[in-house]
């Protein structure tokens, strides 16, 4: 399903971009925040923060809720956990398997007489 692939690409892009990663960190620490408060902690403008929050909201990593004059943003921890776990662990798992293949093959080769 193409939609699924696109969705994952967007998720990965959302998590790996440094500014957005910092914002996710801040949201994790604080539980929730607003664009104004986040901008105070980051070397970017409130407008830029809003733009990045829109990206994060679009892929479901962040949820916004209207509170007075500003939106309050909260992290979707479950979704973030899923992204990092699924892709990171699958790759790590193959690294582990390949290292074992290497060990087994090299041990076997060492026992063989040289041609």
């Amino acid at each position: 399903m193409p939609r699924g692939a696109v969705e994952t690409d967007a998720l990965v892009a959302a998590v790996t971009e440094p500014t957005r990663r910092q914002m996710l960190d801040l949201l994790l620490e604080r539980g929730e925040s607003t664009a104004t408060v986040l901008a105070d902690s980051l070397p970017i403008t409130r407008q830029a923060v809003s733009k990045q929050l829109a990206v994060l909201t679009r892929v479901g990593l962040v949820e916004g809720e209207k509170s007075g004059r500003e939106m309050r943003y909260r992290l979707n921890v479950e979704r973030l956990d899923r992204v990092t776990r699924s892709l990171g662990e699958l790759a790590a798992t193959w690294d582990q398997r390949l290292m074992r293949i290497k060990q087994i093959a090299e041990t076997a080769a060492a026992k063989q007489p040289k041609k």
Partner: protein
Amino acid sequence: MPADRIEREIDIDAPIDVVWTVITEPEHINGWFTDSAELDIRPGGEGRLGWEAKASNHAMIVNLRVERLDPPHFFSFRWDYPDGEEPTETNAPLVEFSLEARGDSTRLRLVESGLEKIARSEEDKETYFAEHTSGWTRIAERLRDYAPKQQSTVAG
């Protein structure tokens, strides 16, 4: 790199025939992958990959079908499709091993693809990822590379 594709390359200080044996013979597959592997090693041949119950997960058996075989250069299979179904690109990830002789050494390349094409629910996908990684040592460094701080905080 598309997100649903894992690509890895490793240089092995062993001749290509030895590496080929390690990745295709059940007794060796049990050394790096499964607890009990059965495999009919020919194109279209079927296999069953078994894992015993461990503290962190229960026992499971996964279907496998050989796609392409070109000894000792190429071996691909689809795996983890439902019992009684034909493996296709929408129900089974594709794993491809390419081997290249470099003198007495071998360059082994691994690609696993098609994870996102698979028509699973999000919950099933989560289970897939969880099950496919259980029984293996969690490599925390890799996760931290991927998303440094979130992971440790989320896990804590």
